[in-house]
């Protein structure tokens, strides 16, 4: 807990002493400065007002911010940023607070910049198939607004009812359809925002490319560390005329993993390809009563969408491949109601886990598809090692795992075992050729695991990129890139990838 971002500031604020006095003085200074650029109702600093902002969707880590600013106009955002830059106050941008890695966790001596009031759809152009929206517009609200035109916004993270497009840009959010339709990155054309000094800046354009380096590609997924996005132009796609889903059971996890590879190898890109293991299936069936096969070791949901002709052709091919891979039971959705029922369990995996355990921690690593069975079997072994249960849901089509480790946060020993269990999953994923986070982001949660995935020189290069956008390091400091000291304390070896090993080359 040596990072400033995780400092136990809440306690310091409560306790009398020189630190608390200094913090209070700093708070006064920041409130005074921001009071000059924001109306009174847009500025919160009393503890009872800032407590709701102390964490995002990763509730295990909490920190009250010094001040919460709720600007209503771009001019106010610019002014807040400029004032904070002048005072050298860290700024943490925040959308709906649904992030799962602590990316929006406040800074103890920083301003949380809530963009909740930027909730207007500015322009929806059905001919261009684009929507220009403010950053606080909810993901699903874009698709709802586009629906009368037969269009929708494709990336659909499970939190899409609540999460905002600004947060999606920060995290490069995925969803269950991204194998076919891409991630946030592939569906965003343009981001307008403000840099750390409060200067307006625009990445991408309404054309398909922009001159110079493709900075939009790094802005998306940068977890609020490069600039504050206020306005986003997204690509809309025609809603497919039909979608049908196959639910297939397997009596062996390895067979289910091989079936996933077989579908892809057959040249099929399913609209969705998801997997649940037996414990997860039991938990969700108890919650949604969708008629899942409780005897199956693994269940695959395999979806086809497109024109009716296309879907009929593809479903036939999928059934053939799944049967060949040893599916013990297969059912094809007959209508939209049944299709949604098939999905209801998968979409409710998180709340269903919440019903069977006081707490759960959701991991998010990605592995090459062919290693699905290997990681599952490794996780089964870890359940014994750490004495905790784990349910597994996967975006199997793109190898993105969401193991849900069940634990009781009131038991410090269990929380500690859970954290080690989670780190073990992440590091095993890296060793299998994968990555520590597929779609939830690094935030504060996976800082240590970044030490395993990237070398000191690579982390330094990422930090240099941050400083190219934000030389003073004011935007969301302490997230994503671990310090050298943290990695040294974590003490685990960096797992090499890519071109190495090469003789004669320095190791960093």
């Amino acid at each position, binding site marked *: 807990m040596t990072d400033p971002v995780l400092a136990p500031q809440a306690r310091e604020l409560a306790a009398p002493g020189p630190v608390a006095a200094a913090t209070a003085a700093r708070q006064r200074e920041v409130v005074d400065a921001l009071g000059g650029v924001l109306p009174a109702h847009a500025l919160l600093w009393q503890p009872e007002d800032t407590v709701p902002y102390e964490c995002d969707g990763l509730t295990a880590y909490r920190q009250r911010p010094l001040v919460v600013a709720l600007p209503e106009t771009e001019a106010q955002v610019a002014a807040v940023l400029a004032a904070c830059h002048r005072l050298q106050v860290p700024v943490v941008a925040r959308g709906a607070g649904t992030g799962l890695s602590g990316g929006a966790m406040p800074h103890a001596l920083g301003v949380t910049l809530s963009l909740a009031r930027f909730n207007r759809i500015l322009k929806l152009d059905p001919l261009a198939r684009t929507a220009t929206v403010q950053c606080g517009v909810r993901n699903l609200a874009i698709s709802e607004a586009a629906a009368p035109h037969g269009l929708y916004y494709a990336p659909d993270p499970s939190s899409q009812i609540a999460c905002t497009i600004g947060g999606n840009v920060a995290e490069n959010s995925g969803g269950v359809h991204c194998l076919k339709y891409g991630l946030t990155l592939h569906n965003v054309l343009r981001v307008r925002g403000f840099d750390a000094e409060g200067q307006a800046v625009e990445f991408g354009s309404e*054309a398909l490319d922009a001159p110079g380096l493709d900075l939009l590609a790094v802005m998306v997924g940068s977890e609020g560390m490069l600039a504050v996005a206020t306005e986003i132009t997204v690509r809309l796609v025609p809603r497919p005329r039909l979608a049908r889903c196959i639910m297939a059971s397997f009596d062996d996890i390895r067979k289910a993993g091989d079936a996933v590879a077989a579908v892809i190898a057959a040249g099929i890109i399913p609209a969705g390809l998801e997997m649940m293991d037996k414990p997860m299936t039991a938990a969700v069936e108890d919650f949604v009563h969708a008629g899942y096969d409780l005897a199956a070791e693994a269940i695959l949901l395999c979806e086809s969408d497109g024109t009716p002709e296309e879907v009929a052709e593809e479903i036939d091919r999928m059934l053939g491949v799944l049967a060949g891979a040893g599916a013990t039971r297969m059912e094809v959705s007959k209508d939209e109601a049944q299709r949604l029922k098939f999905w209801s369990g998968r979409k409710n995996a998180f709340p269903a886990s919440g019903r069977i355990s006081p707490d759960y921690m959701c991991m998010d690593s990605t592995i090459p598809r062919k290693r699905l069975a290997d990681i599952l079997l490794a996780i089964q072994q870890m359940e014994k090692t750490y004495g905790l249960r784990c349910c597994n849901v996967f975006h199997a089509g793109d190898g993105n795992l969401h193991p849900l480790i069940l634990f009781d946060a009131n038991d410090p020993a269990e929380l500690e075992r859970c954290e080690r269990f989670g780190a073990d999953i992440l590091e095993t994923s890296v060793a299998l050729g994968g990555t520590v986070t597929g779609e939830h982001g690094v935030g504060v949660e996976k800082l240590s695991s970044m030490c395993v995935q990237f070398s000191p020189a690579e982390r330094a290069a990422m930090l240099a990129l941050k400083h190219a956008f934000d030389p003073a390091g004011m935007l969301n400091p302490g997230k994503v890139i671990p310090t050298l000291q943290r990695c040294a304390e974590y003490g685990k070896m960096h797992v090499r990838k890519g071109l190495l090993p090469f003789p004669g080359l320095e190791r960093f």
Partner: protein
Amino acid sequence: MADAALDALVDQVRDAATRQAALEIRGGGTKAFYGGAAVGEALDLRPLAGISCYEPSELVVTARAGTPLAELEATLAAQGQWLPFEPPRFADAAGRPAGTVGGMVACGLAGPGRASAGSVRDYVLGASLLDGRGQLLSFGGQVMKNVAGYDVARLLAGSLGALGVICEVSLKVLPQPVAGATLRFELDQARALQQLQRWGGQPLPITASAWWDGMLVLRLAGAAAAVQAACGALGGERIDDTLAGSFWQGLRDQRDEFFVGAARAVEGGATLWRLSVPQTAPPLPLSGEQLVEWGGAQRWLCTSTPAAQLRDAAAAVGGHATLFRGHDKTPGVFAPLSPALERVHRRLKDAYDPARVFNRGRLYPWM
């Protein structure tokens, strides 16, 4: 052997950095025309070649920068897969399609499939970069979803070597479509653009379009049933598959009639511009031959109109103009950046290539 190739590159870069000497990163030399004029000693990437890893069921291929693009495409085709962004395959001075994987990523150019399938950047999953200090850095990975750290690998697509040498790259690949058809419609530019927008909003398997000289050509691809149904719904004149195939290949590799004519005009002093604009931009009132691709989003213009007028016209509709081929590059190849973005570019260059070893002036004169 390949390890020796990498070691040699590292040595050459470190040596150049010590001397503050300029290096021109070079693959097959097929895109030397693109960007600012090359300066410095050649850093030849061709010895660093070979497909490091390819597993069709993972939809991922990893190849070293010097791997001939033709070799990569043949390897993918043998498994029924391809690069859906259809990178152009230019010829070298001897007329051979000598382009490399590294050059393809560094230039970031895509062909007819761009509007429907995405850009080079959209398919980059990971890359190894040799920076200006001679450090080998690896970003991204070989999996579809990866948000660990900043997406530096994707930033390299289209970077023209400004940040360093792309040594190895992992790309997402896709199965080739099962069926295809090409339709032709006689339409003027304004009506062609309107029609493309109308069709674009419908769930039709349109994967490419090209308008030139009163003729709109449309490519459909996907499941056989879907292509069949769309042909019925769209009308137009169906073009023989062989003829259509060579048309799209020619367009992709810029060997077709429009580009041959443009090359001749460029010899005569004209300039070939690439205007990247919103798809809904109206026909641009500019003199010269125009070829419209990407559903209206890419407009090729061969003209002698002054650069400033073209840049203004593109900017007025929300786009930008690139001086793609021409002898006089004094107006700058790429549209100027806003001060805020230029600052970030300069700082990135300082961070990744402090001695300004790589591809000086290729992207912007000041980079």
